[in-house]
């Protein structure tokens, strides 16, 4: 898994590449913890190059969403979620926990 992190004035952008399963979810979890521990809670995750997400991966994103939304201090926004990944997310009812955008500029601009 590769994560490219860019810090903007109003939010942080993470471009993730690869698969998000039990083997790799801890890598993303560590990166997200590093950002939230620095007091940054407005996050945009570009998943355009992510081709697989298991429930372990979703839990990393949901736990981060819980942390970010606490005290209305921020939010995790998802961008470019592949259709089959989005289907599985909706199937388990987790889709409602995230706003999903079709392009990075709109997501970043929403903060």
């Amino acid at each position, binding site marked *: 898994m590769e994560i490219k992190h860019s810090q903007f004035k109003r939010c942080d952008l993470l471009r993730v590449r690869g698969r998000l*399963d039990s083997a790799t979810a801890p890598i993303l979890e560590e990166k997200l913890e590093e950002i939230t521990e620095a007091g940054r809670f407005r996050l945009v995750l570009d998943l355009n190059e992510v081709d697989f997400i298991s*429930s372990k991966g979703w839990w990393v994103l949901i736990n981060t969403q819980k942390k970010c939304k606490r005290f209305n201090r921020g939010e995790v926004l998802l961008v470019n979620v592949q259709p089959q990944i989005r289907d*599985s997310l909706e199937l388990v009812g987790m889709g409602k926990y995230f706003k999903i955008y079709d392009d990075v500029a709109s997501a970043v601009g929403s903060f």
Partner: protein
Amino acid sequence: MAKVFKTARRVFAGRYESLNEIREFIAEAAQEAQFDSQSIYAMQLAVDEACCNIIDHAYGGEDRGWIDCQVDVRSDGLLVTLIDQGKSFDPEQVPPPQIGKPLKEVKPRGVGLYLIKKMVDKMEYHSVAGQGNVMRLFKRKR
């Protein structure tokens, strides 16, 4: 009666690093079963979740046992059989996930099994003395 075109079997170490290899093994069989990309992903996800449950719950952690994986490419779809030697469980006793709960109350329990059931057309699980725990996942060709 469905015809079996091909059967393949591999044994994987019960660790998270095996998951990618397992998914590739499943994708290859699903392609041979002439699945479309959506069905290939569904079968990969179901098997990934099942293998994670084996590692986490049956074995109680990584590197404590093996996952025996057999694929049967059939005329009507794909059958995947997973066997482990860990602790067995009763799928009926696993509570369903808390779909619809507010974000701060939602917990991960039951999501893996729920996904497995939703992704395949048939799931069977039983424990056989001397053989281990056997999970069969069948997905029909669309």
